[in-house]
């Protein structure tokens, strides 16, 4: 890496080398049995240069060819984007818990057993269901070296378990997906099996719902559908391009006062945590929404500088891409309502748990329109059964402006931690 930096600096004014070494092992299950054990060994490097005030970039996964890599990065800088920043100098880095030795020492055999345990918990009670899924452990090492003297590296582990239980019947299919992930090892099999069994039980009867507007609870699993629009809206790059609807909204209320959201790159053992971002800026917490008021956008160095602000340590990248702002862990702070209380409050409404067709509409403006893959009808405070073959639609921003209650039990779904949220109105068509 030092050599690449040295060669690059003989022609460019500034340079940065980013290397990722990664090892992943995945145990895959299909039709209730183990199907495959897969591994990935990856080693790649990305070179960013600033020459004549312009950014150049190239990447390779063959480190032997340093000269070629440098030449390609230099030639890309001829036309590249104007650089509005300098590579950062070393700064104090907080220690962040994102490495668990238990993950790296975890044996494949143990992962196989853990998967089999979860599946047998489900199939013992529900023998007609067929489960597929995977357990994955990953270990990687990131190092950033730049011409301002920064030389930072960190190690990170990830562990994830996903399971999908499926039942095909002539009158209709039922598929339930559940999962957990993070940087540390935890035994998830009983938790995941328990959630799936509970959903199977609730979805036993199908019930009809007439088209109309209804109160709705979005579970933690379904909330990312609504938060996705906000994620794009606060993205410094989209703000800088003026394609975010939140431009000029800083300091203004954009959602209900019960909504508090932060981006937290320091959350212990959360999937999005890391000591530094993709440009070497020390990770931090950034308040996004406080009591419904928009507080901050998220930036990398380039977009921050263009917006006359500073990086929020949200530069995200892989070795083969330029950094770009993206949330680390997006946390929707819990409220005080339990799920039971929310359900009890509903005279006639729905619970949204899984959808299909998300991310295909006009995500920027918040419009969504999705098929309810797994959802339930609530009548007089009780879950009556599964609702299917309907479309639900609305606008994420409008929904977040009509929140009746925020749940108190939050959980991570990937890099988003959210409780269930109870809304005044969604449109149901079918």
């Amino acid at each position, binding site marked *: 890496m030092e050599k690449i930096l040295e060669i690059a600096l003989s022609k460019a004014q500034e340079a940065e080398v980013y290397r990722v070494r990664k090892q992943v092992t995945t145990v895959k299950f299909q039709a209730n049995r183990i199907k495959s054990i897969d591994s990935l*060994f990856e080693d790649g490097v990305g070179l960013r240069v600033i020459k004549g005030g312009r950014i150049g970039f190239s990447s390779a996964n063959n480190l032997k060819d340093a000269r070629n890599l440098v030449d390609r990065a230099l030639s890309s800088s001829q*036309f590249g984007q104007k650089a509005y920043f300098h590579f950062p100098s070393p700064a104090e880095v907080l220690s962040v818990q994102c490495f668990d030795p238990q993950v790296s020492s975890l044996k494949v055999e143990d992962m196989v057993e853990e998967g089999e345990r979860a599946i047998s918990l489900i199939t013992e009670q529900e023998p007609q269901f067929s489960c597929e899924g995977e357990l994955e452990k990953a270990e990687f090492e990131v190092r950033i070296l730049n011409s301002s003297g920064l030389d930072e590296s960190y190690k990170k582990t990830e562990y994830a378990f996903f399971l999908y239980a499926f039942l095909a019947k002539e009158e209709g*299919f039922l598929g339930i997906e559940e999962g957990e992930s993070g940087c540390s090892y935890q035994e998830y099999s009983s938790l995941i099996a328990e959630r799936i069994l509970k959903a199977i039980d609730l979805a036993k009867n199908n019930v009809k719902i007439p088209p109309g507007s209804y109160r709705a609870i979005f579970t933690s699993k379904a909330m990312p559908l609504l938060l996705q629009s906000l994620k794009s809206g606060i993205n410094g790059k989209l703000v800088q391009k003026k394609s975010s609807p939140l431009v000029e909204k800083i300091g203004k209320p954009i959602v209900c006062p019960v909504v508090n959201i932060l981006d937290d790159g320091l959350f212990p053992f959360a999937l999005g945590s890391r000591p530094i971002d993709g440009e070497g800026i020390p990770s931090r917490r950034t308040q996004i929404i406080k009591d419904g008021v928009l507080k901050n956008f998220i930036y990398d160095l380039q977009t921050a500088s263009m917006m006359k602000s500073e990086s929020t340590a949200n530069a995200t990248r892989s070795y083969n891409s330029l950094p770009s702002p993206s949330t680390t862990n997006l946390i929707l702070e819990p409220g005080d309502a339990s799920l039971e209380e929310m359900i009890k409050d509903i005279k006639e409404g729905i619970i949204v748990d899984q959808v*299909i067709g998300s991310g295909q509409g006009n995500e920027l403006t918040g419009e969504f329109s999705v*098929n309810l893959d797994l959802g339930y009808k609530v009548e007089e405070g009780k879950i009556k059964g599964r609702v299917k073959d309907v479309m639900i639609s609305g606008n994420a921003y409008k929904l977040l402006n009509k929140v009746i209650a925020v749940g108190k039990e939050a959980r991570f779904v990937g890099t988003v931690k959210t409780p269930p949220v109870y809304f005044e109105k969604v449109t149901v068509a079918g």
Partner: protein
Amino acid sequence: MKVYLTSCLEKIKAKYAEIRYEERRITRVHYVGKELEFIGESETRGGGIRVQGKNGWSFISFNKLEKLKDYLNEAARQACIARGREVRLAPAHPRVEVIRAKVKKDPRQISLEEKYHLCTRYNQLLLSPKKVQSSSLRYFDVHTVKYFANTEGTYIEQERVDTIIGMTAIARDGINIQFAHEGIGGTGGYELVEGLEDKAEEVSRRAVELLEAEPASAGKYTVVVDPKLSGVFAHEAFGHLSEADFLYENDRLREIMQLGRRFGPPELNIVDEAPIEGQSGYYLYDDEGVPAQKTYLIKEGKLVGYLHSRETAAKMGAQPTGNARAISYRYPPIVRMSNTYIEPQGKSKEEIISEVEEGIYARGFRGGQTNLEMFTFCPEEGYLIKKGKLVKKIRDFNLTGNIFTTLFNIEAIGDDFVLFGGPGGCGKAGQSPLPVSTGGPHLRIREVIVGGV
């Protein structure tokens, strides 16, 4: 390469093993709004090996070819830990073949400067209307050489060149933000992306026009879809369910999906066909070294075929169809579609629309998804149809249906036909985007659920 790969395979102790190795050179140009986000070239090299154990598989992907023997040993070890069902493969004739790409204008011969100017010109056109706030223009050309060798004596080298451009215009009026997109290109050279000035202008015009459209009202409608949506419909509403890896180990689903079952009207034919030159889903051999072919999934309204890998074919007593594909060396091959389409029939587009008393004409596509029973397919824009005439432009709606009922509701199949590729593609089992093309004629479908306000 052939000597090295085959010599590594000779010593492995396993029933079956295969090596794939890939060299890829990619040039990208990416504009977002006025700013050139990225321009440059990169190279990736890597391989994937798959080893069959008695009761399962192991797959390992890697960058360091010199350590291939170590990885093969590790894969053989891991394959023994897999204690699932017995794995069998349908026979495939050993083949040795070297395929070179046929390209008119090799993008590797075009300078970065020329590509820069082309993209800059298109991007300026996208941004030219006053109401267009931003754009996204993604150009890429990819030169790939794929090597495949297995323990049965098959050795295939395939070269391909893809040249693709994706153009998006984002128009804005206050808080109303609308966008239009067009993807162009596929397997082929630089000629595929030249002369697209009119297209760029059209895309930005479409985005601006969408600002004036009204949000659609939710409900059940008779919907006429254009060839773009018709293709996504074929892909989502039926294609995925015909992928045999969903079926082969699920007896209940196999019963439901029995050959001969009627899914739609007698005029309905749905096909998957990889060997169509120029299309995004074009290839001659799949990633198991099996020749690609044309497969009817639905013929005259009845289910007549599935898409197979060697493993699913063995289990279901069928022939492999050459549909085992991986998006790159980092992933194992799984059953995928290639170019999937609905065959045209006799009705003109005008007739199809004019016969609608009240309904929606939906155009362009933003994506689709399925859970094997229900599916969504999302148009870019639409028009309300009243008494056979297009009366009002509408936006922000999504279409959904049930695979087992909606295909029966197809009441008219058009006489036109277009296949679309471009950037983007299909996602399955974490592998996305896989280049595919989809297409068909105009269709009219009854009782489609439309999600809107």
